[in-house]
């Protein structure tokens, strides 16, 4: 620091006069603020305050003096006019009151949560209705159907998700097979690995894993995209051209995912079974030929079709939830992140709920032998 100590705010008493000098600024006072104020407060207020030697006085310095004086100018004071105006302003400052606090805030929040959940469910219901109407309208006017958006979404969600689905699907197949192997070997029931792996992967794990990966990967992207367009008023621009955002943004995504998800499920099934088959060969000595031959015999094809149908349902669900949350985004950064999070959480939850419901409905179908 090049500035000398003389610039520190200080005062000296000369008979009945208190001469203040130095720089009474925020940066100089910082840290000693309260101490300085207390010291000044103890000085007899009848004294003559001489502020004319002060080198600089900013609002922080002025507040300090003002508080030391108890919120009014002392009777005897000498200062420059430019400083006087600062105190004149201080005299008018209304204090900032604490933010309004309500009692029973917990109930308040709970109520708000319940109401919002109700609104969300109703909004989801309305959005599904709008999607169906738009779909029907699209069938009647195929020319205005958003074909390009559908194919763009298929490219973004389909081939681009294959690497991650391959990795996860393969590992799940390996793990299922590996975990079952030791138990099966104990009972000498080695060949049942085909039933276990086939049934669990085709019926449950294939569609579930695909849906969960796609909610995280594409659902969040949809919400962020639609939400971002909401923030930049692009949705309003669309509406002014007479194009409902649901038709142009959400419907094509729902259709694209309904088409692409069954194919992705099929792919995940295949790599999962491949992983299971490799482990069956290594751990249980079941040849790949036997595995492939046995599969269609012991696992009814119903399971494959159910898994693929689930894929289509989950695809529509993901686009539906993601679109709903995207439209809910308000023009600020916190809203965008919150809606993206709830979009992913909600779609994964619903995927699992629907999966459980379907498991109950079809409990007696496709068990095989």
């Amino acid at each position, binding site marked *: 620091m090049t500035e000398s100590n003389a610039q520190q705010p200080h005062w000296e008493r000369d008979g009945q006069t208190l001469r203040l000098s130095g720089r009474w600024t925020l*940066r100089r006072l910082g840290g000693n*603020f309260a101490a300085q104020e207390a010291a000044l407060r103890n000085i007899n207020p009848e004294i003559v305050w001489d502020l004319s030697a002060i080198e600089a006085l900013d609002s922080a310095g002025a*507040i300090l003096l003002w508080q030391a004086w108890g919120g009014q100018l002392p009777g005897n004071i000498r200062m420059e006019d430019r400083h006087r105006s600062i105190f004149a*302003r201080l005299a008018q400052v*209304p204090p*900032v009151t604490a933010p309004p606090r309500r009692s029973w805030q917990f109930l308040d929040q709970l109520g708000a949560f319940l109401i919002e959940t109700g609104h969300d469910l109703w909004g989801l219901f309305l959005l599904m209705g709008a999607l169906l109407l738009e779909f029907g309208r699209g069938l009647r006017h195929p020319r205005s159907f958003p074909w390009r958006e559908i194919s763009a979404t298929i490219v973004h969600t389909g081939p681009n998700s294959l690497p991650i689905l391959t990795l996860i699907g393969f590992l799940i197949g390996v793990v299922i097979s590996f975990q079952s192997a030791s138990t099966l070997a104990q009972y000498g029931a080695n060949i049942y690995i085909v039933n276990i792996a086939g049934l669990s992967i085709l019926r449950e794990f294939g569609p579930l894993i695909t849906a969960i990966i796609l909610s995280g990967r594409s659902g969040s992207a949809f919400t962020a995209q639609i939400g971002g367009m909401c923030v930049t008023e692009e949705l309003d621009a669309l509406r002014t051209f007479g194009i409902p955002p649901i038709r142009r943004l959400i419907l094509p995504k729902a259709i694209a995912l309904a088409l692409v998800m069954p194919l992705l499920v099929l792919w995940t099934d295949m790599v999962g079974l491949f992983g299971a088959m490799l482990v069956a060969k290594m751990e249980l000595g079941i040849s790949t030929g036997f595995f492939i031959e046995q599969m269609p015999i012991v696992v009814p094809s119903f399971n494959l079709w159910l898994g693929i149908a689930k894929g289509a349902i989950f695809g529509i669900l993901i686009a539906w939830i993601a679109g709903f949350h995207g439209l809910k985004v308000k023009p*600020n*950064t916190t809203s965008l992140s919150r809606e993206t999070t709830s979009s992913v959480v909600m779609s994964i939850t619903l995927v699992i709920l629907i999966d459980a419901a379907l498991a109950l409905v079809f409990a007696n179908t496709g068990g095989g032998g």
Partner: protein
Amino acid sequence: MARPNAIILTDIATRFGTHWIQRHLDLTIHCGEILAIVGGSGTGKTTLLRAMMGLVPIAEGQMIILGKNPQALNLREQIALRQRWGVLFQQGALFSALTVFENIAFPLREWGHLTRSEISDLVALKLQMVGLQPNDAWKLPAELSGGMVKRVALARALAMEAEILFLDEPTSGLDPIAAAEFDALLRQVHRDIGFTVVMISHDLDSLAATADRVAVLADGKVLTVGPLTEIQQVDHPYIREFFHGERGERLLTSLRATGEC
């Protein structure tokens, strides 16, 4: 004053990659003045402003700001220096997750040398200074009008008792009434506190109302600097268009009529 000049730019150059925005640019900004930078799009007004704030590196040349050369300082001294100026960004750049109060208190809290009640007093003063009501303090930026966003941003820029205030198009996006109010507010706060203002503006009304001097950027250099009435005499295509286009003429005529010219 020990420092008659707040910022001295000597032979400054800035660039994006291989594209030079400015070269051999000289500009001196006096302490306590309001200097406006004008120039067509692409002349690098914002880049120059960001270079002064230290957000864009200077490729060549030397900058002395508040008597110090930021390039020669270590990190701690640089941060201490940065706390001596405030910035009002074009869109306000208020933290949308924080309330108005928290936005203004933010630099004070981060500084860490003040207690809560002191911060609260300072924020109350700043709110009053920019003409906001105490009950605006708990609103979120999303609930504010464009003019209020600028006011809160100004209060935040001034929270640390800035010695230099950088304004990037302070009146853009405001209606003429709100813009005029903001100009008046800036003038008044400037008179009360006496900081240095460097602002970018295209708004001729705003320039006439606030700026002490105007610097015209063209061809990567400062074409001319001076009071508005002086620089409009300079013969250059950009200046001719800027001040002697239809809008400019109208304003200058009204200035002459009021005897300011």
